[in-house]
């Protein structure tokens, strides 16, 4: 039932009304709203009951194993939430003077410093509001750099075919053409293809390392050289940074610019779709172009860095300074981890992934890159199962829900048929991993004995399988009173 269907004309929530007859006579009639907007008219309890009830229809990290590859669904510490929501932080207006903002600015400054250390980059700007905006900032900086050098022949960005969709979409938003290069059977970038692809038209390359196929790009130094020699810059998509924290630094691999998905690696909540935070870090030569504002420390004092300090900045990407409350959560998380905790993230996420990969392999599942180590994630292909039983990866995914596990990422990257990209993360315990593996074996058995049943899954969710085609064809995007 929709909240609108619980609504009753004339119902109000007295305790949220100010009971004031405020004078608004100065607003001219022609600019006034004529008819009240249709919003729910429910009591506070009705709203609480409705949205509490709805919440229970969700899977979430707080209730389920959620091994979504690339998305990094790990425990979101409640301490981060509570502390980021301290009244003093929530009450701070973004235009409050610096003298009234030292606690906040100190935290942002410290976070910049932490991110510099873990990425090996020279400077960091926190302002991008998610990974994709970080990518935008990064590629825009690459462009600004070439523009500053009057190097306007560089019109192409190279992107591996396995890349996340945000990569090519970002390149286009920055006015670039996208040149795709293939991934080899062993999961590495095809170096020969890369050599052919680069040239004076190359503005740069966008890479994820570990890559989106769940392996570490071993030839990264060679790739860096090829691109740099051609005059291009290297962009690092930090979605998988959690796999290498404290082990390798993107700066050391030769990257010029990097974004970090703090909502992944630094475990801020995904909130059913955000908010995120996508800070960018750069090597020396891109410093002038970083988006503003940033935070500087002068003596014991913190202050904003703006266009005045950075005249070559690519500019601003948000009305204020990005998703500050999310940056706070990331900062708190980083402080709780500290030096050793950072390394443990990469170590135990890698341990968990390799354990699952080996166990699933033993159980007879086929890996996309069987010769490779898993990083923090790995890819399994169900093409054999699909062929033998007719139950495809999507069916396995839906059936997993019935067993209480969220499905891994399906059909990404696109180059591996019927694939599951599985990322357990470091916060899951062995018993949970074993349970997932057991369930996978069980579903395969079910597919062999009763494929139709598996293809009809799920059965235990609030709804059965949904008709996405109808959703797109007969668009119904808002409730309208009958």
């Amino acid at each position, binding site marked *: 039932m929709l909240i609108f269907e619980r609504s009753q004309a004339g119902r109000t929530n007295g305790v949220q009304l100010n009971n004031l007859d405020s004078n*608004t006579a100065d607003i001219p009639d022609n600019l006034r709203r004529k008819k009240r907007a249709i919003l729910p008219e429910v009591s506070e309890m009705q709203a609480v009951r409705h949205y509490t009830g709805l919440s229970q229809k969700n899977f979430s*990290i707080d209730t389920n194993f959620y091994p979504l590859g690339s998305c990094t669904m790990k425990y979101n510490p409640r301490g981060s939430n509570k502390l980021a929501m301290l009244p003093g932080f929530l009450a701070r207006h973004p235009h*409050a003077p610096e003298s009234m903002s030292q606690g906040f600015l100190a935290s942002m400054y410290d976070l910049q410093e932490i991110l510099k250390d873990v990425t090996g980059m020279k400077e960091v700007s926190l302002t991008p509001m998610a990974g994709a905006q970080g990518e935008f900032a990064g590629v825009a900086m690459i462009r600004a750099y070439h523009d500053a050098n009057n190097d306007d022949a560089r019109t192409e960005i190279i992107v591996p075919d396995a890349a996340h969709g945000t990569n090519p979409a970002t390149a286009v938003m920055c006015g670039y053409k996208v040149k795709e290069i293939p991934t080899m059977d062993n999961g590495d970038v095809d170096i020969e293809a890369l050599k052919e692809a680069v040239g004076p038209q190359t503005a740069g390359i966008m890479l994820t390392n570990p890559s989106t196929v769940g392996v570490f790009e071993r030839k990264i130094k060679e790739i860096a050289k090829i691109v740099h020699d051609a005059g291009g810059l290297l962009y690092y998509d930090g979605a998988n940074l959690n796999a290498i924290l*404290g082990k390798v630094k993107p700066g050391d691999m030769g990257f010029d610019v990097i974004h970090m998905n703090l909502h992944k690696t630094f475990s801020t909540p995904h909130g059913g779709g955000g908010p995120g935070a996508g800070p960018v870090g750069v090597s020396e030569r891109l410093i002038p172009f970083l988006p503003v504002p940033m935070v500087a420390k002068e003596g014991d004092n913190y202050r904003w860095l703006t266009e005045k300090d950075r005249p070559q900045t690519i500019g601003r990407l948000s009305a204020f300074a990005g998703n500050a409350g999310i940056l706070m959560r990331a900062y708190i998380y980083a402080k709780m981890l500290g030096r050793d*905790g950072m390394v443990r993230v990469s170590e135990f996420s890698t341990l968990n992934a390799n354990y699952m990969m080996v166990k699933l392999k033993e159980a007879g599942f086929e890996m996309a890159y069987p010769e490779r180590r898993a990083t923090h994630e790995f890819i399994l292909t169900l093409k054999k199962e699909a062929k033998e039983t007719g139950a495809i990866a999507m069916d396995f995914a839906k059936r997993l829900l019935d067993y209480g596990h969220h499905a891994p990422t399906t059909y990404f990257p696109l180059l591996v048929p019927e694939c599951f990209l599985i990322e357990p993360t470091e916060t899951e315990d062995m018993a949970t991993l074993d349970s997932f593996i057991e369930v996978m074996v069980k579903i395969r058995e079910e597919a062999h004995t009763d494929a139709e049943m598996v293809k009809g899954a799920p059965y235990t969710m609030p709804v059965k399988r949904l008709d996405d085609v109808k959703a797109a064809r007969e668009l119904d995007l808002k409730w309208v009173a009958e």
Partner: protein
Amino acid sequence: MPFIPHTEEEIKSMLDAIGASSIEDLFDEIPAELRAEGLKIEPGMSELEISRLMNGRAAEDGTPGVFVGAGAYEHHIPAAVWEIATRGEYYSAYTPYQAEASQGTLQLLYEFQTMIANLTAMDVSNASLYDGASALAEAVLMAVRANRKSKSKRILIPRTVNPVYRQVAHAIVRNQGIVLEELDYDREGGHIDPASLPAEPGDFTALVIPQPNFFGVLEEVDALTNWAHSHGALVIGVVNPMAMAMLAPPGEWGSEGADIAVGDGQPLGAPLSSGGPYFGFMTCRQQHVRQMPGRIIGKTVDLDGKTGFSLTLQAREQHIRRSKATSNICTNQGLLTTAATIFMSIMGAEGLEQAAATSHANTNELSDKLAAQSGVSKVFNRPVFHESVLKFDKPVADIQGAMAEQNIVAGYDMAAEYPELAGCMMVCVTETKTSADIDNYVDNFKRISA
């Protein structure tokens, strides 16, 4: 180990299963010369320790009296909003890709879309964008895609639009050859005077109309909308959603209504929180829905014919369309739209109206009382909505500084973005303030000006 559940025994048995002798072995594909030497950051803190640190920092910033808006507004948020929104099932869920296991978030977002479409009186809404500023940038890009008749990629954008919004839009669209052309405002009214618009403006793709504008001044939205439409341009409204409870919504501007409306959802349940996370919203006419960026939720049925909800029109999005997507946007502000949906449900249209009206009256009270002081005057003569620009004899920075010492955030200094308004400060007083607070402001002001 913080957040890691592994026992020594489990680690051993997992390594045995893998056939590795140590966790270190699992990193053997990383070239040795690349390996980091370890981090320099400090050792980890316990929750107790970080609590002490953060409590101290929060106390340092305190909870001052806020009399500034300029894009972020301190409204009362019912306690239920965040107590529900931070339930783990909302807080720690991913984007609802597996619809059957995400009906909570999906239905909520469908309700959100309905509420925002109704508030703006537009046909359809998406499920959020990052913030108001970037939403304007997306609206500009969308207008260029949607207005196939216009070839100029020329967007008219008044200087009365929030200056940072204009900067953000510029930063985001400039690389695609789009030109944002400024329209200057009337110095008396603080608005775009329709009479001043050129009769022959040449081809342009869209006109941006803010309501209320950055100065709090109300624009003549009907005349502006009709003018743009008469020249084949689209109209992009930039609105404050709380104001929509009182002001004519973009869907009803002029004879045909705006084509796209965007804004920042912050007034709908997001705490000030140093400027974020907030959320951007975007609504449009039905015919443009396929040009809209961001996630969109649709109603559908399951195998049994039962109603359900899922992400729809995904063929616009980057994960399907890659370089041909309407935008690169992926993760955005889910949790904030959750809070906003609960907020709007609890407040209802009447609650929004009262909060808006009280804020408006409070701002008038303060600006009237200030303008009654010598050396202070109102800058614009047009009607405003809950924000007001005042001119002071005394330097604005001095006023701000002295008021800060009284634990008051006094207002927004106009000089940086509007050199012609040097000496001017903009104030905003929401419904969270009482007459006593306003008098306290004025008394302090008198003291420091004496």
